[in-house]
Structure formats: structure tokens, C-alpha cells
């Protein structure tokens, strides 16, 4: 995959320009006209000097000026049009490429996303794609324009004076040597800075999404210092780039100046010796002065081409990644399924280690039953779910749904048949309705409300100002952990599919709400396969069958009562949890007492606030100050007080008034 970047890789991107060929052609035509028209004005000057002035030809002078205006008009129009088309192509290409990239990125297996850093991917989706789009949309037009300009300039120069022209061309190879020298160095710095930039982005991303943790550890300053360190590295590279650019432009300018000086001298010599006219030398020097421009443009494009190869490689890494087999045509398509899940001697370890996270897992979950998984933290429960959703592939053994091998089921239909409430609940920003209907094309209001009711979140939603249309998410309405969980359960229920997975879906709920929720669910999940992961003994009672996972294996299985009677791992686990929950109950009682105390104090306070009133003096000061617009000095005189005291009264009265307004107390 880490093939060295080459032009062939970039070639694929040029093919993206194909749909815009008509606009490209038009734009090139316009550019061609502009190039030709751009060359007319020195010739007009030549005619003026050689014909109109010496012959005192007023008509010719007038004609030439009008001719110049006409040329100018067309020139401006066509250059604007070509700019318009170039921008158009650039923009649409950028959108197109971003779309492809993003779609590809989301298709890549989770494995890939675990390995990459978000900041790095951000840079790729923004900077790298920009660089590629810039280059791809620019290279061909600039290249053609350059050639065109060069040919036109040479032709016209040769027709005026070929010896001078040939001498002028001697400077060109020098220019190429110079450009080649710098292009390689620029690319090198570019690669380094892109990497550094990715690091910085990743850093920002991680820190900003975890401000709470940083604050709670008092690490604001520390993190800022770390950022500075990272930025310093980036800054160094920017300076390096600047330095290079400085040298590059210095040598460019130097070369051009020397070249033109020489030509000026030689051109003058040709006039003095009578080979060409004054008008002609003026024209040819103007043209030769322009002749370096195409080379400079070409050099710039070449440099950007070389440095964009770095970006191409970074983007290609994503584009060439093996996506999950969404549309594998050889796979089974699941429509109506029973929902029976079977694991047969499944073993799993992550590719980078040999240490098995799961060994020999054999289990079945039948439709219409609740199958529970329990075990210590880190035992591998969530891993089993990941295997079922094919986020990861089993190392050994096989998994079946309705006797179809999971490997052979089309990934899309597999996931369409499974509804999951995962351990770390993700709620997207948007309205509650959008969140509940996420991933469902069918809109069914009644089902949505029913799902919310079953998840015990309906009442909360209705208490919000806009009900189901309330916008939640970052920077808007925050939800508590339990509310998020219930919303997530409602979302999973709304999908109404055969297999429902609850990975500690109710861990943040109090036991009363939780038991209500399970009561509601029992109705809903009659014919569904429910796979549930939980630590709570009370919840485990709901399960028809329990698998206990200990030391990477299934150590016991059976019904709740049977497992207890066995007095094995489950018994121990159960006892431990029970004890914990008793402790929790005590804690809760304390908590309730504490809450009551707070509530009482709060009531006292509000009563005190209700008693709040403005004194007559305060009212008067406020009236004079705000309504009549008097100064402190005047008010002081009127009330026979110091202006400073008045200002204090004014301030405290205003504060009081604001607070009263907040509490909606009548004045």
C-alpha cells in the first residue's frame, strides 16, 4: 500500500475532470483568445511609434485607440469567463472528491478507524483533498496556456527579429535547472509539515472533546504548553518553507533581471546599428520581458504537482483501503429471519497480538427469549457483540444466524436486522425525532411514540419545550447519562427488527425506572431474540438463559435459578453484585436525605427572595437615573447625598431589579 507516489497515481484524479470537458474546452478557448489579445498592445504601440507619430496621421491614431478599446473589452470578458469556468470546475471537483473520500472512509472496517487518529483523517479530508483539487484543476489549463503563450510569443518575436529572440532563449535552461532544484526540496518540507499538522489536529480534537477531564485534573495550563510544543515544530517547518521560498524567488528575480538587462542592451545595439526600428525594439523588448512568465507559471505548477503527490499518497491510502463487503453479490440476503443466533467454538484475538480474548465460545440465543451475558469487566462481552455485527471477524469457529454462516451473509442486510444499544451511547446533534428515526427510512409517528413510552423517556420528551422536535446535542440541550441511554433504547426499539442487543443499556438507570422499562419491553420483544449484557442481578432475573464469561471462556450457562443452585462462578458474581447493590441502597437513602435537605434550603431561599423589594430611595434613584437620564451629581444634589453613594445605590438597586426579574417577582 505504501507505494511510492508517482504521476500515474495522480493520473486517476485527472479522469475526474472528464464530466466537465465542455466547460474545460470553452475555458481554454477563452484563454487562447486572451493570450492572443494580450499580445496586441505592444504591436499597437509599435504602429503608433513607426507610423502614426512620424506621419502625423490623426485618423490612424484614432482608429488604433478604438481598436485597443475593443480588444480590451473582449479580453476582459473572456478572461472573466475562463475564471468562472475554472472556479466552477474546481468547486464541483472538490465536492465530488470529498464525497468519494468520505463515503470510502465510512466504509472502511472499524479496525482501520481504531488505528488512525481522527485529526490525521481530518487533515486528509480537508487539506490534502484541497491540494489535490488545486493541482488537478490547475495543471492542464496552466500547462496548455503556457505552451500557447510561449509559441505565440516566440512566433511574434522571431517575425520581428530572430537573432535577438534566439539570444533570449539561452536563459531558459538555467531557469529549468533552478526550478528542478527547488521543487524537490519543497516537496520534502511539504510532507513533513503535513504530518505535523495531522498531529496538531489530532491533539486539538482529542483535547476539545475531553475538556471535562482536563478541567477536573486541573491540566489546562499543561495542555496549553503541550500545544505550544507541537506548534513550535510546525512553525519550524513553516519557516523552512519560507526560507526556501525566499531563495527561490530571489534567484528567480535575479535570473530574470540579468536576462532582461542583457536583452535591453543588445536590442538597443540593433536599433543603433539600423537593423530594426524604434517601434519594433519597443515591442520585442516588451514581449521578451513577458517570455519568462510562462516559464514561471510552468515552474509553479510543476512544484505544486510534485508536492501534491504527497497528498495523493495520503488520500490513496484511504481510497485503496479494503472496504467492508457491503455489496458482495455472492452473499445471502436476509429478509425474513427467525433470529436464531449460534456461536460455534468461536475464538478471537486481535491481529496484533496472540493473546486470545475469547476462546471456544459456544452459545445459542433463541427467538422469543432473553439471553444474557455476564462476567467481569474486560471479560470479552462486548467483543462477542462486535463479532456478531461483523465489526471484527472470528479467528476460529463459526457464527450462524438462522443456520446461515455469518461470513456468507450480506453485511448490509445483517446489520439491518440487528438493533443495538451499545455501551457508550452516541446521540447525534439534531432533533430528538431525527435521533429516534436514525437509519430508518419509514416514518411512523405512532411507533416512535410507543418506542419512547416503552423506553420510559416519553414523559421527559414531552416536558421539553418542543417535544420531539427539541434539538439536542453539542452546545444545545444536554442530556443526562440515563436519559441518553433511554433515548438510545427507544431508538433501537423503533427500528423494529428481529435481533435486539442491549450492551449495558440500562446501567445508568435507577432500579425503579429500569424494572418499568423491562416490564414494557417484555410485551415488545415477544418474538425477538434479545441478547443482553448486564451486571445487575435484578435484570438478570428477566433472562431465560444466562452465559457467564470468565477468563475468556464461557464457564457456566443455564437459567438464573439453576446457576444459583450450582454455587459456581455465577453464584459468586451474584453475591458480589448483591452486596454492592445493598451498599448502593444505603448510599441512596443517604442521597435522598441529602436531596431533601437541599430542597428545604432552596425553598427557604426562594421565600426570602420573594420578600425582596425595592426601597423608596432605590426606586427614586433608578427613576432619576434611567428614566430622566440625570447624572449622579444632580441626583445627589436633589436627594442631599454624595454622588458616590448614589452610584452605589444605583448599582445595588439595579442588581436587585435584575435578580427580581429573573425570579419573575413583580416590582
Amino acid at each position, binding site marked *: 500500500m505504501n507505494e511510492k507516489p508517482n504521476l500515474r497515481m495522480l493520473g486517476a484524479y485527472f479522469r475526474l475532470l472528464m464530466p466537465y470537458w465542455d*466547460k474545460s474546452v470553452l475555458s481554454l478557448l477563452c484563454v487562447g483568445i486572451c493570450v492572443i489579445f494580450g499580445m496586441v498592445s505592444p*504591436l499597437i504601440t509599435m504602429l503608433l511609434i513607426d507610423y502614426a507619430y512620424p506621419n502625423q496621421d490623426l*485618423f490612424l491614431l484614432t482608429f488604433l485607440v478604438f481598436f485597443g478599446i475593443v480588444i480590451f473589452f473582449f479580453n476582459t*470578458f473572456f478572461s472573466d469567463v475562463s475564471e468562472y469556468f475554472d472556479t466552477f470546475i474546481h468547486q464541483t471537483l472538490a465536492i465530488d472528491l470529498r464525497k468519494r473520500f468520505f463515503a470510502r472512509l465510512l466504509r472502511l472496517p472499524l479496525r482501520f478507524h481504531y488505528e488512525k487518529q481522527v485529526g490525521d483523517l481530518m487533515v486528509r479530508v480537508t487539506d490534502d483533498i484541497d491540494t489535490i483539487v488545486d493541482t488537478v484543476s490547475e495543471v492542464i489549463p496552466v500547462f496548455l496556456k503556457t505552451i500557447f503563450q510561449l509559441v505565440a510569443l516566440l512566433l511574434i518575436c522571431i517575425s520581428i527579429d530572430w537573432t535577438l529572440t534566439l539570444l533570449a532563449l539561452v536563459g531558459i535552461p538555467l531557469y529549468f535547472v533552478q526550478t528542478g532544484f527547488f521543487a524537490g526540496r519543497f516537496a520534502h518540507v511539504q510532507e513533513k509539515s503535513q504530518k505535523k499538522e495531522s498531529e496538531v489536529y489530532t491533539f486539538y480534537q482529542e483535547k476539545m472533546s475531553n475538556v471535562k477531564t482536563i478541567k477536573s485534573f486541573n491540566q489546562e495550563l499543561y495542555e496549553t504548553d503541550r500545544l505550544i510544543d507541537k506548534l513550535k515544530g510546525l512553525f519550524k517547518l513553516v519557516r523552512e518553507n519560507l526560507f526556501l521560498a525566499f531563495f527561490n524567488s530571489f534567484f528567480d528575480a535575479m535570473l530574470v533581471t540579468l536576462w532582461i538587462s542583457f536583452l535591453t542592451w543588445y536590442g538597443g545595439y540593433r536599433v543603433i546599428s539600423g537593423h530594426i*526600428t524604434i517601434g519594433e525594439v519597443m515591442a520585442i523588448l516588451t514581449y521578451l520581458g513577458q517570455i519568462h512568465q510562462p516559464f514561471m507559471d510552468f515552474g509553479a505548477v510543476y512544484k505544486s504537482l510534485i508536492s501534491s503527490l504527497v497528498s495523493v499518497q495520503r488520500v490513496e491510502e484511504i481510497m485503496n483501503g479494503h472496504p467492508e463487503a457491503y455489496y458482495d453479490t455472492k452473499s445471502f440476503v436476509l429478509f425474513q429471519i427467525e433470529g436464531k443466533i449460534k456461536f460455534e467454538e468461536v475464538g478471537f484475538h486481535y491481529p496484533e497480538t496472540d493473546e486470545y480474548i475469547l476462546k471456544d465460545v459456544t452459545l445459542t440465543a433463541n427467538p422469543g427469549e432473553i439471553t444474557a451475558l455476564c462476567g467481569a469487566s474486560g471479560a470479552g462481552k462486548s467483543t462477542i457483540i462486535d463479532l456478531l455485527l461483523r465489526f471484527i471477524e472470528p479467528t476460529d469457529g463459526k457464527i450462524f444466524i438462522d443456520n446461515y454462516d455469518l461470513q456468507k451473509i450480506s453485511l448490509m442486510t445483517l446489520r439491518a436486522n440487528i438493533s443495538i444499544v451499545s455501551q457508550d451511547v452516541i446521540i447525534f446533534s439534531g432533533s430528538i425525532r431525527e435521533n429516534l428515526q436514525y437509519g430508518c427510512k419509514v416514518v411512523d409517528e405512532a411507533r416512535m411514540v410507543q418506542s419512547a413510552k416503552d423506553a420510559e423517556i416519553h414523559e421527559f420528551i414531552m416536558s421539553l419545550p418542543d417535544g420531539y422536535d427539541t434539538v439536542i446535542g453539542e452546545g444545545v440541550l444536554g442530556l443526562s447519562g440515563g436519559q441518553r441511554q433511554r433515548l438510545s433504547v427507544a431508538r433501537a426499539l423503533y427500528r423494529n427488527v428481529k435481533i435486539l442487543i442491549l450492551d449495558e443499556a440500562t446501567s445508568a438507570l435507577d432500579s425503579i425506572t429500569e424494572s418499568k422499562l423491562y416490564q414494557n419491553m417484555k410485551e415488545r420483544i415477544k418474538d425477538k431474540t434479545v441478547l443482553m449484557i448486564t451486571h445487575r442481578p435484578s435484570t438478570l432475573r428477566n433472562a431465560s438463559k444466562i452465559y457467564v464469561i470468565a477468563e475468556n471462556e464461557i464457564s457456566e450457562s443455564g437459567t438464573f435459578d439453576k446457576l444459583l443452585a450450582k454455587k459456581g462462578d455465577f453464584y459468586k458474581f451474584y453475591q458480589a453484585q448483591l452486596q454492592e447493590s445493598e451498599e448502593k441502597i444505603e448510599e441512596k437513602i443517604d442521597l435522598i436525605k441529602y436531596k431533601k435537605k437541599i430542597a428545604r434550603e432552596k425553598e427557604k431561599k426562594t421565600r426570602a427572595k420573594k420578600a425582596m423589594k425595592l426601597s423608596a430611595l432605590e426606586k427614586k434613584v433608578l427613576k432619576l437615573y434611567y428614566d430622566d437620564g440625570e447624572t449622579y451629581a444632580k441626583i445627589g444634589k436633589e436627594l442631599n447625598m454624595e454622588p458616590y453613594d448614589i452610584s452605589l445605590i444605583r448599582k445595588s438597586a439595579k442588581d436587585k431589579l435584575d435578580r427580581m426579574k429573573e425570579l419573575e417577582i413583580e416590582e
Partner: protein
Amino acid sequence: MSGPVKRMLNTMFSEDMAKQSFFVEMLTLVVFALLAFVIIWLASYKIPITAPQDGQRVVIEQKNIFELLLSKKE
């Protein structure tokens, strides 16, 4: 504002990129045609170039602008 002008302005600032670019394409083609006419007229028009001779202005050459631009003065 009258109907067609308003419509034209609408398409020019249309949100729909495709519509707008189509308009610009058409406009460009129209200006191309205009340019062609101008060039044909310029090519057919011979400019009389005069010079003073013995106190009178005489026509020394008749050339169209393109010939004139690319000619070399002896």
C-alpha cells in the same frame, strides 16, 4: 423591470450551479459570435495610411489592421 431582463438576472444569480453555468456558457457563445463579426469587419476594412508630402496628405498604403500589425516596416 421587464420580464426577460428579470429572468436573465435570476438565472445569473441562480442558486442552481448547473443553471447558472449553462447561462454563462450560452453568453460566451454569443460573445464568440460577436467577436467573429468584429473580426470579419476589421479584416475587410482597409485603413488608408496617409503621410504628408509636398504640403499635401497622400495615401501611401491601404492595409487592414491585421496586416498592419504583422507587417515589417522597410
